[in-house]
C-alpha cells in the first residue's frame, strides 16, 4: 500500500508542475461487476466443509470502484492519467449461543494507468465518445477465519498478492457545464498477464490453478465521472 501511495503521489507531483492549460480533474465512481469465479470457489469449498450450519452472506458481489483522473483536454481528443481502486469480498457466517464462526475475504486492487478519450459525435451540448484505459494492477487479498466457542476464540489471517495488467475499452457521454461537468461511463474491464496469488514466504494459494487470467477483476463497469476543468488563462494581456 505504501508503494501504491508513493506511485500515486509521484503522478500527482509530476503533473503538478505542468503548466495549467486545458487540465481537467475527474473523479469517477460506480459499480464493478467482477467475475471473481476462482475466489468464489474458495468460499464455496470452505462453506461445504463446515461441520455446522452456516451461511454465505456474500460472495464477491458487485461493488463500488473509485477512479480519480487528470486529463489534458483537446478539441476532440483527451488523454490523461488515472488511478483506479476496486474492492469486493465475501463472508461465511454462523452464530449461535455456543459461539461464532466467520470466514471473511477482502480483495483490493490498486491500478495506475493511462486513458485516452475520443469524441465521436455531438448531440448538442452532450458529447458521446469512446475511451480506452490501460494500466497495471496490484491486487491484495486478505482472508480471515475466526472461531469463538464460549469465551475462547481463535483467529487466523492470510494475506495474498498478485500483479497484472488491464485494459478497458468503453463508451461515455459527457455533459459539460462551464468548468464543471458530469459523464456517464460504460466499459468492460479486462485483466491480463496476471501472476499467481502468493502469500507470505511465497506460498501460493492452494487453489491457484483455478485462478486463470480472466476470472478475477474482469467484468462490466458502470460509473459516473465528475469533472472540473481549469479555465484556460488569458495570456494575450501579457503581450
Amino acid at each position, binding site marked *: 500500500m505504501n508503494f501504491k501511495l508513493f506511485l*500515486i503521489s509521484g503522478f500527482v507531483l509530476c503533473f503538478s508542475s505542468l503548466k495549467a492549460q486545458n487540465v481537467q480533474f475527474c473523479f469517477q465512481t460506480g459499480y464493478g461487476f467482477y467475475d471473481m469465479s476462482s475466489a468464489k470457489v474458495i468460499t464455496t469449498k470452505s462453506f461445504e466443509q463446515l461441520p*455446522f*450450519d452456516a451461511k454465505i*452472506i456474500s460472495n464477491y458481489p458487485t461493488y463500488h470502484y473509485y477512479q480519480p483522473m487528470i486529463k489534458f483536454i483537446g478539441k476532440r481528443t483527451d488523454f490523461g492519467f488515472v488511478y483506479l481502486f476496486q474492492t469486493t469480498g465475501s463472508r461465511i457466517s454462523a*452464530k449461535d449461543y*455456543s459461539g461464532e464462526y466467520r470466514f471473511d475475504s477482502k480483495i483490493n486492487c490498486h491500478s495506475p494507468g493511462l486513458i485516452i478519450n475520443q469524441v465521436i459525435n455531438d448531440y448538442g451540448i452532450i458529447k458521446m465518445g469512446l475511451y480506452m484505459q490501460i494500466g497495471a494492477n496490484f491486487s491484495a487479498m486478505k482472508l480471515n477465519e475466526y472461531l469463538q466457542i464460549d469465551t475462547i476464540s481463535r483467529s487466523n489471517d492470510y494475506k495474498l498478492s498478485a500483479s497484472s495488467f488491464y485494459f478497458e475499452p468503453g463508451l461515455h457521454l459527457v455533459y459539460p457545464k462551464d468548468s464543471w461537468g458530469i459523464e456517464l461511463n460504460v466499459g468492460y474491464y479486462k485483466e491480463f498477464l496476471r501472476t499467481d496469488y502468493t502469500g507470505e514466504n511465497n506460498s501460493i494459494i492452494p487453489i491457484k490453478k483455478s485462478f486463470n487470467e480472466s476470472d478475477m477483476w474482469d467484468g462490466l463497469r458502470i460509473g459516473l465521472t465528475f469533472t*472540473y476543468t481549469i479555465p484556460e488563462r488569458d495570456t494575450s494581456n501579457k503581450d
Partner: protein
Amino acid sequence: MNLLKTAFYTISFIALLMLSSCEYQTDKIYFKEVNKDVSQPDLTVNLNLNSDTIYIYSYSTIKLSLQLTNKTLYAVKFFLDGNEYPLANYSGDVNTYSFDINLTGEPVTKVRAEIYTSTGTGSIADKIGAESFIFKSKEWVLINVPDKPVITSEVIDGRLKISWTPIKSSLKSKYLISTSYHKDSTYNNWYIDSTYVGGQNYISLEIKDNDVSGYHAYSEINYPFPTVFIDNKDKFKVCWEKCKFYNNIAGYSCEIDNEVYNTKISDTTFVYKNGILGHYTYVTFGLLLKDYYKDNSKVRYYFSNAAYYPIDWAQKRRYIGGIFYPYTGNTFYFWSDDNGVGKLYKYSLDTKTYTSQVTSPSSYYSNYSVSPNNKYILYDNSGNLKLMATDGMINVKDFPIKNISPSGSYYGSNVSDLATIVYWNYVLKSLTVYDILNEKPICNIPFTDDYFHQGSISANGKYLFEPWTSTIYKIENNSYTKVWSYPNTTSKFKFYQFSPDMQTTIALYDGSTFYLKNCSDFSTLASFSLNNNEKVINVDFEKKKILTYNNLFFYVYSLADGKLLNSIRTSNYVNTRLFDDNIFMENVQLNLNDL
C-alpha cells in the same frame, strides 16, 4: 496559478482519503436459533469391575463397554488417582474400551471413568465436539496384592488334590481350572482331579472376572508314572508298581506284538505266553483311564521297551561265543568275552546262575566238547589239547596236538566219559581212537579212500559212528570190529547221536524216518516217520524227547513213539538245543513245562 495548485492538492488528498476508507465491508452475520433443550444420552455402560473394592494380583485389564443409541461418542477416559490413563486398546465395532494396569508398587489406587458424548443440539460447539454430555462413573478402589497365589498338590485316596491360595474378594469367586487334560471350575480353593493318573501336568488357575483382578496361578506337577520293567528271567513277565492314582484308572494295558492285553486294577504283573521264541519282543505299557477328555484316549501309554522272548537266561550278556551241552544233567557251559578276556562259564539251571570258571584265550570254535555225562571238557587251546574235569573244573591233561597229529591240525570228535576221542589221522589215513588220560592210541581204523572221515564216540567209549559210510564200530581190547554198515550209500543219515547211558543206543534220522538202534546188534528199538524237510536238532535221551525244526517252527516229539508233543513258533534255529526239557537258542530259553 497558486489557486490552481491549492485546488489540485486538496482534491488529491481527499481522493486518497476516500480510497483508503472505501474498502469492501460487510457487517451481516447469520445467527441461528438453537434449541438447547435436548434429550439425555441413551447410554448403557458396563465395566468389568464387579465390586467397589478390588484386589489386584498382577497385570490387570479394566474393560468398559457401552451402548449409545442417540448421540455420538466423543471420548472415553480413565483416571487413576485423578490422572488420565492412556487407553491401551479400543475395539470400535463393539464399543469396548480397555486398559491394562499394573499396580506394582502402588498399594492402593482409585480408578474412575468419564464418557463424553455429543449433545445433539446442532450448535457450532456441538458439531465440532467442543460441547458434550459427560458421564462420570463412581470411583473404585484397587488394592495391590503383592503375594501371588500358589498351587499345591497331594495324593489323597488314589486321586490328585490341588489346593491354592484363595482370592481376596468380597464376592464369591469361581475358579477356572485348566490342566493338561481337561478344564473345570469350582468355588472352592481346592479341587479333586479325577482324571490325572501321573506324568507331567500343567495346571492353570484363574478367576472368571474378565481379567480385572489379574488372579492367575500356574503350576507344573509331575508325579512319576508307575515303574515298569520286563522280567524275563523265568518267564516273559511285565511287572509294574501300583499306580498312586488308582481311583482314577480302570486298570493297566499291555500292548505286545500288536495285541492289547488289559489287566485288572489289582494286578501288578502280566505273563505273556504267545510270543515267538527268540523274538526281540516290544512291550508298550499304559494306564487304562476311567475318564478321558482332552486327548480322547482311553489309555495313557508311557512305557515302551523290548526283551527276548520268553526267557533271557544270559541276562544282558549279549555276546555268547558258544554253548556246550552234555547229554545229561542240568548244567551246561558257554564261552563269552568279558572285557576282552575270554572265559568259560558254567551255568546251572537249578540256580539260574552262571559262574566264571576258566579264563581262556581260546574262542568258542576251538573244539570245545563236553562228555555226554558231564565228566570232562576237552578243548583246543592254542595248539594244545586240554582236558578238564568238570568236577572242580581242574585241568587234568595238557599236551601239544603235534603229539598226536604231526600237522598240528586236530579234527576230533566229542570226548567220551572215559576221556577218549576219535580223530582223523592224516599220516595213517585212519580214524584213531585215542586215550587222552594215558596219552596213547587205542586203535586205528584205516580207510582206503581219499575222503576225510570223522567219527562220533559213545559215552562209554565202546562205539563210534562214522557218518560217511554210516558204519558203527565197536572198540574193544585195543581193537575194533565193524558192527554194522549201510551199503552203497554215503552219508545216509543226516542226524546221528549216541545215548549217554551204558546200554548205548544210537538215534539216526535219514530225512524221513527216525530210528533208535541198539549199538550192539543194530536192532531197531523204535522207528517212526517225521515230516519231510524237518531238521532234527538233537535228542534228549533223559527226557526222551526229540527236537526238530521246520519253517520257523520247533517240534518236540516223544522219543518212544514219535508223538508230536509241542509246536513252538521261533524266529530262527541257530545254536539250538533241547536240554533238560528246555529249548535253548543262544541266550534265549523256553521251558517246555511252561507251555
